[in-house]
Each structure stands twice: as structure tokens, then as C-alpha cells.
């Protein structure tokens, strides 16, 4: 532990779904203003970890402290603490398809903060401009946007209420490399402008290197390595090494290979 003020502290977090023990004692500290990227393979528990922090899934055990207050056991109205403080960019955008783009961006302002629609619309158009989208985009429906534009709208929605904490769930998944880099740049730029604390989950190493102050690797429900992005190449951990270099051979055995081996 450092003497830095911790914005988010996760201690000994456990979560199971039936016999599937997804999180097996995750511990993470994220300092105020720090950008932490959690990497890990598909099914390693990254999304479950993020949903536990967001209060969308209740952990079985452990503590999640935001500014020192444990929110792991909170329900209903109390859970709004984390929602009020944070913004989230979902993997698929999760834009409300029954609303126009500007209404999506201004959603929290209109429905949670009860701001006048005119004021909220102006703020939404400003947020769209911050992510490089023209004001006319605001009047389109989300279905009329490309994948990259939907991510940008999702980012605009996440930052619209000037949150203290930002969460990014696979921010570059499904995008071409150039658009992925555009999104990464926007994330770095906006996070810096807001001074927000962020937790991102991804398996895109280019994205992780770009947006992280620190990278942590989740494997089989535990954090197995944590360090600076430039240290990941020489982590000394064979599992991290295999993941970073995307090798099929190594200590991390894919499920399909184990099943195949059993049959043999």
C-alpha cells in the first residue's frame, strides 16, 4: 500500500454462479485520478468484476470501497452513490434505441438530475463535440450510427455528468485498428480533462498500453500481476507473457484444449 489516497479499494472479492467460482479473492486499489486497465482472457471474470464494482451484481464476499465507504452490500437507493459518481462505456454501446442520440447523451441530466431539456440538449451537443461528433448527429437514432460512432456516443454519455470515476468495458472491441486508436485517444484526452479515476477492462493490448497508468492481469478469478505498461513485456510471469504475446502454447490452457485432451 502506498500513501496515495485510494479512490477505489477492492478487497478479497468473491463471486460464484452455481459451481462456477468466477472471482476468487480479487484485490485491487485504484488511486485518485489513476487509470487502471484489467486485462485477461475471455471468461476470466473481468466483466463480473466490473459489474460488481458498478453494483449490477452483488458479490458473495469481500469489500468494495469508494472513497472509503463499502458499497459491496448496498442495495437500492444506497447503491446510487456509485452511479452518481461514475460513468460507464459499455462494450456494445448500450444506447437506448428508442431515443435520439442527444437524448441518450443527456439521459442522466434529464431523468436523474431533472435538468431542463433545453439545457441538457446543449450539454449533450457539447459532449458530442468533445468526442468529435457534429451537432447534427444528435438528432439521429442510434441505429443510424456506425460502430465507431456508437462508441463515441457511449463515451459522450459516460462523461456528460462530469463523473469522478469512469468505467470502460472493452472500449475498442469490434472496431478497426484506426477507429480503435481514435477511441483510445478520446478516452485518454477526456479522462485527463475530467481528472477522473478509471477502471477499464480489455483484452486489446494496444488499447491497454495506451490508456493505462497501470495494468493488472486477472486469471482464474485472481489478480496474478500488476505493473506499469512498459513493465509488462518483462513481467517475469509466464501467464502474463503468454497473454501479452497472444501465444496458444503456454501455461494458460484454453477450455477447448482441455476438453479435447480429456476425450483423448
Amino acid at each position: 500500500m502506498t500513501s496515495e489516497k485510494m479512490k477505489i479499494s477492492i478487497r478479497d472479492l468473491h463471486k460464484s454462479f452455481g459451481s462456477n467460482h468466477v472471482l476468487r479473492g480479487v484485490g485491487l486499489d485504484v488511486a485518485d485520478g489513476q487509470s487502471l486497465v484489467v486485462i485477461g482472457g475471455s471468461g476470466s471474470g473481468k466483466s463480473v468484476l466490473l459489474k460488481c464494482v458498478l453494483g449490477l451484481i452483488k458479490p458473495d464476499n469481500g469489500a468494495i470501497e469508494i472513497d472509503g465507504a463499502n458499497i459491496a452490500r448496498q442495495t437500492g437507493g444506497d447503491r446510487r452513490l456509485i452511479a452518481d459518481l461514475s460513468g460507464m462505456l459499455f462494450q456494445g454501446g448500450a444506447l437506448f434505441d428508442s431515443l435520439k442520440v442527444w437524448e441518450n447523451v443527456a439521459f442522466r441530466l434529464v431523468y436523474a438530475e431533472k435538468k431542463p431539456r433545453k439545457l441538457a440538449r446543449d450539454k449533450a451537443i457539447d459532449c458530442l463535440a468533445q468526442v468529435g461528433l457534429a451537432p447534427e448527429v444528435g438528432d439521429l437514432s442510434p441505429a443510424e450510427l456506425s460502430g465507431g460512432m456508437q462508441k463515441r456516443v457511449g463515451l459522450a454519455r459516460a462523461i456528460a455528468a462530469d463523473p469522478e470515476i469512469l468505467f470502460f468495458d472493452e472500449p475498442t472491441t469490434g472496431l478497426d485498428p484506426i477507429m480503435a486508436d481514435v477511441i483510445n485517444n478520446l478516452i485518454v484526452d477526456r479522462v485527463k480533462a475530467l481528472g477522473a479515476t478509471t477502471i477499464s477492462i480489455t483484452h486489446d493490448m494496444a488499447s491497454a498500453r495506451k490508456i493505462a497508468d497501470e495494468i493488472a492481469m486477472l486469471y482464474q478469478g485472481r489478480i496474478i500481476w500488476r505493473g506499469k505498461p512498459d513493465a509488462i513485456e518483462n513481467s517475469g510471469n509466464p501467464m502474463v507473457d503468454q497473454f501479452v504475446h497472444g501465444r496458444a502454447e503456454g501455461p494458460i490452457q484454453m477450455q477447448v484444449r482441455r476438453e479435447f485432451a480429456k476425450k483423448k
Partner: protein
Amino acid sequence: MNVVAATGRLTLDATREIGRIANFAARGGTAWFVGPFYWRAFWDALARIGYASLPVVGLTAIFTGAALALNIYEGSLFNVEAFLPQILGVSIVRELGPVLAALMVAGRCSSAMAAEIGTMRVTEQIDALSTLSVDPFKYLIAPRIIATTIALPLLVLVADLIGVYGGYLVAVYALGFEPTLYVTNLVDFLNSEDVTSGLIKATVFGFLISVMGCYYGYTSRGGAGGVGSATRTAVVAAAVSVLASNYLMTSLLVDI
């Protein structure tokens, strides 16, 4: 032995599911007791469920009324001019109006609610609502439940009028009844309790239909297949709950 175990398991599963639905209904039905109230979502739901269901409910009622008039005429042995409007009026107002309107709304709106909310669930839009500090029960569920519970009695009132008018058209123009006599016999025989019992039923039906649509949508899982399955189950559950509760309420209301 296996049959006994399977029956026991089925009973436990059914009881658990009914418990979950009751819990969901209580949470959804009471979500608006404390603000915030999302009036825009409510008016939108009221327009889609109430106003937009008028044509289908009206068409069902007019053809049912017309067919019923022919059946009653065919089956009557004497004094048909008096009996036809009376039997038709009571049948439409107490039974057919509420049940047929409810089944039409169940088919039209319960499926739409399950599909819409189910799609929002599998595309993480419901999670997004929570992260934007908006309670999905207040924004999505409560407006739909309240709008359907209010809209269905109003639709049934319209269905009653149109159904009786359908019978009137057949009686007067096809069977040669005296129009004034038809109306007099109808109005003299029907009492306020007939109409009230139909409207009480409609209120309960509206609540049940919306709860089924919202519940199966909200709990759907697993992409397009899950949403399709939720939609199917919602319509069946809504229709069965309408028919079962109709019997229960009729057995209670016939003594009024």
C-alpha cells in the same frame, strides 16, 4: 418414484416462479409510490397500449357482438326481441368485452413489452439505466404496469359499446328488430353492477398482462433466442392468467 419426484420438482419450480412474479409485481406496482415519476414514459406507454389498441379491440368487439346476436337469435324459442338484447348485453359487458379485449391486449402489448424490455436486457440497456442513476423499475416497469392497468378498463368500456352496437346492427338491419325496442330492452335490463364487474375484471387483467410482459422481458437471458422465448412465454402466461383470474373473479362477483 420418478413421476413423484418430477411432480414435486415441477410444483416447487412453479411455486418459486409464482413467488418471483408476485415479488416483481409488488416491486413494479409500488415503484411510483415514491418519486421520481417519469411522466413522459407513462404517457408514451398509455398511448401505445391504450390508444393504439383501440382498432383491434373495436374490431374484435363489433364482430363478436354481431356473431353473438345471430347465435342468440338462432337459439331462441320465444320472445326473441326481448331476450336478444338482454342476453347480448350481459354477455358482452360482463364476460366477452373484458376477456376478449384483455386477450387482444395480451397478444398485442404483452409480447411487445417482453420483446422491448428483453432486448434492452440482452443489449445491456437496463444495466446502462442503473449506471445513469435511473431505477429501471421506475422508468421501465412502473409506467407500463400503471398505463395498462388504467388503459384496459377504458378499452373495455369502448369494447362494450362497440360490441353492443355490433349486435344492434345485426338485430336491426339483418333480423328486422325494432331499433327503439332493442335499445329499451338492453338499457332496462343492464344495471350498473354488470358494467362495474366488467371494469373491475379489466383492471385486474390490465395489471396481470403488463406484469407478465414486463417480468418475462426483464428476466430474459441469452440473446435473440432468449428474447423470443420470453416473448412467447409472456403471451401464454398473460392469456392463461387472464382466463384463470376471470373464473376466480366471476365466482366472486356473481354474488354482487
